[in-house]
């Protein structure tokens, strides 16, 4: 079935640096959503994209349905950015259900 492959599974950054998380899709997806699990364990919506790019503060996300991938870029990482990030995609078939990636555990170090 449709799958979402998220990488890396773990990432360590020093404060002030940046990097990118990536999700590859095995089939064409109609949209993608990025979540972050906060300190209370809740999943917080970061971005929803049906195409193109979106930016919010130090985060920027891109989605290319044709090339079957999405990215989440983090710049000027801060300690409070540490946590688990998930991408999730909406399959092009059927109802609007999310298919989740396996998550990226981000650790930001002083």
């Amino acid at each position, binding site marked *: *079935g449709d799958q*979402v492959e*998220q990488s890396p*599974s773990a990432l360590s950054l020093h404060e002030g640096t940046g990097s990118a998380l990536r999700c590859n899709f095995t089939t064409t997806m*109609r*949209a993608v*959503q990025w*979540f972050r699990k906060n300190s*209370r*364990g*809740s*999943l917080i*919506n970061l971005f*929803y994209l*049906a195409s193109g790019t979106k930016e919010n503060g130090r985060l920027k996300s891109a989605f290319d349905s044709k090339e079957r991938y999405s990215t989440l870029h983090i710049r000027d990482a801060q300690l409070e950015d540490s946590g688990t990030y*998930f991408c*999730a995609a*909406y399959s092009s078939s059927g*109802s*609007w*259900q*999310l*298919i*989740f*990636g*396996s*998550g990226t555990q981000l650790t930001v170090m002083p």
Partner: protein
Amino acid sequence: EAAVTQSPRNKVAVTGGKVTLSCNQTNNHNNMYWYRQDTGHGLRLIHYSYGAGSTEKGDIPDGYKASRPSQENFSLILELATPSQTSVYFCASGDAGPANSDYTFGSGTRLLVI
């Protein structure tokens, strides 16, 4: 404030016992979902619902039942709990469409089956 509230937050159950996880949403969403999240996996869909009285099987429904008695409430039921069902369970409500997604998760329920 619109929200998804799960209860209990933590639960310890014995093998073979019955467990009910509850979820309440004030978002007035039609769709509600139950996921479980395990290390190395993304959230996996167990059951979902399109509205009151509706329950649908997700990707991993075996061993679980669901009940949607009203727009606001969606329960996940483990009739005979097993240790393999030890996990963190997330409820969500959401109506997604071409332009946006209004998808809200609860805070999760940690279930330990011993």
